[in-house]
């Protein structure tokens, strides 16, 4: 159709290329596949309505964890413009150190008698640990490279990531560490007809809360203004009297603190941590940040939620409906395909990013 109309406008080079055709085919196939799979899944009645609702809640909760970590990615990317691969390890270090605090409190009995006080103490420990690690990595691996091409800090961040993983393994052993359970958070709430497991509810609330705090920090405070100035142009910010190094350290510290919060919540929900814990959530969080529009705080949140929901519902809804066996094995395939599709439809992510819009 498009080809015909292009031909009708007259002479000259073709306006319809292979690429456009391919992308349209992808779009049509995707929409068709999703509708087809969903139709069979829903009409097949394999899952009840309540189960679909549960899947939704699970997805949102998982997405909230991604979102919390993604906030740190987005902060660093927004201000410094490079991918901090070690951020997943920053998150892991919070969760890992937090485990020892939680374990100690559990042994003293405080964990059982004063669960919320204990959680608060552990939260502080997690945040401190993650912040210290994040700031330390910045000092050693990134600051000397402030003016290098952006691929260089990417490589040092990979190096830092390796180092942190194996340093934690060496220090604390390779075994899986189990967080003590919080009895007070057993059970579920009923929210508007959705069954929300309490720990998951807390994760969702915390993610939204942290996002709002971060948003206020960036938009409403002097520090936030400095961050935005540095993000815009480091040199000019410096000339305008902004302490660039200090601002960047603040960015890493805040991102680290967010990762620390995520670490504790991880301990609450999954009760497990080991030296490799940070890797996959790190990648997923980065995916979330891109999905939402990297550099965009609200985008990180939205991206995380969407990714979580897609991972949770996608395999059951689309793949199982299409007759794919062991659909949940392919949940990452669904997640990444969703990312590709979103970017094919909206090249700068769901919420977009400022620079790209100017360029478009």
């Amino acid at each position, binding site marked *: 159709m498009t080809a015909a109309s292009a031909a009708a406008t007259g002479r*000259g080079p073709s306006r319809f290329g292979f690429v456009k055709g391919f992308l349209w085919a992808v779009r049509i196939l995707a929409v068709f596949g999703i509708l087809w799979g969903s139709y069979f899944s829903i009409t097949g009645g394999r899952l009840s309505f309540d189960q679909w609702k549960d899947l939704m809640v699970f997805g949102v909760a998982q997405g909230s964890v991604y979102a919390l970590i993604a906030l740190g990615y987005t902060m660093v990317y927004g201000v410094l413009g490079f991918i901090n691969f070690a951020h997943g390890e920053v998150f892991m270090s919070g969760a890992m150190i937090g485990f020892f605090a939680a374990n100690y409190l559990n042994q003293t009995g405080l964990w059982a008698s004063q669960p919320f006080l204990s959680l608060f103490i552990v939260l502080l420990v997690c945040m401190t640990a993650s912040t210290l690690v994040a700031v330390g990595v910045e000092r050693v691996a990134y600051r000397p490279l402030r003016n290098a091409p952006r691929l260089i800090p990417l490589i040092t961040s990979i190096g830092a990531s390796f180092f942190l993983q194996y340093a934690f393994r060496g220090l604390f052993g390779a075994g899986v560490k189990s967080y003590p359970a919080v009895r007070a958070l057993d059970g579920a709430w009923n929210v508007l007809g959705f069954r929300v497991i309490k720990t998951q509810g807390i994760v969702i609330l915390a993610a939204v809360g942290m996002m709002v705090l971060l948003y206020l920090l960036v938009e409403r405070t002097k520090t936030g203004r400095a961050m935005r100035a540095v993000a815009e142009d480091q040199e000019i910010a410096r000339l305008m009297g902004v302490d660039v190094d200090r601002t960047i350290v603040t960015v890493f510290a805040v991102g680290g603190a967010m990762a620390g919060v995520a670490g504790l919540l991880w301990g609450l929900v999954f009760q497990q941590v080991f030296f490799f814990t940070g890797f996959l959530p790190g990648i997923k969080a980065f995916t979330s940040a891109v999905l939402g529009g990297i550099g965009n705080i609200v985008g990180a949140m939205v991206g995380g939620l969407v990714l979580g929901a897609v991972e949770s519902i996608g395999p059951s809804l689309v793949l199982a409906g299409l007759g794919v066996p062991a659909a949940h094995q392919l949940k990452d395939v669904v997640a990444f395909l969703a990312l590709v599709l979103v970017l094919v439809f909206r090249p700068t992510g769901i919420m977009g990013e400022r620079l790209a819009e100017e360029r478009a």
Partner: protein
Amino acid sequence: MPLLETQGLTKVFGGLHAIDDLDLHIEEGEIVSVIGPNGAGKTTFFNLVSGMIQPDSGKILFEGIDLVGLAPHQILELGIARTFQNVRLFQNMTVLENAMVGQHARTRSGPIRAILRTPGFRAEEEAIRRKAEEALAFFGTRLIGYRLEQPAFVLSYANRRRLEIARAMATEPKLLLLDEPTAGMNPRETLELTELIARLRDEKGFTICLIEHDMRVVRGVSDRVICLDYGRKIAEGTYHEVATNERVIEAYLGTKAVEGV
């Protein structure tokens, strides 16, 4: 038939009409200057013609072919080359390589021929090199000799501007769009470039459209001057006609005074 013609060209950025229902034409062999205060939409006009952005409505006809919807490289193949206001060279490539890139659209050999180093490929490479050197030689000794192998970033500001023009020349265009070619040059260099622009038309036969703030340059080279303001054409004619046009003076005085008027 004019070489380039726009009909009802409109581009809106977030509610702001950068180009608003613009009709203009450029005849073959002309040197046309586009002037106007900052933000009048001059560079947007170049971006539209070169295909870097797409118009919201209207047509851009080049030798009767509508350019709307074409990729920039297709437009270049048709014969439109441009330079940039804030010189955009391939900084880390050599002077010669920069100019050789200009020949990209005029040559064909693909990866397989490049790997096999066929005689056709070698001949083509030789031709590319010759044409690039030819374009560079247009600026005397400034861009040749040892400079051929220098990376572009070591060049002086004026030489970068020259190299950018040479790169555009190497694409063998019919229409050359020069975006503030003399910005940042000293008076002597400006004068030299003014002469050069005239030579470009006379010797190479390019049709030239330039955006310029320096009115001495505009007066020196233009066959015709078009003045834009808020994306609309407010005046057109010879230099003197436009320079004395009330709306033009108003537009400029409303923003800033112009030297040389």
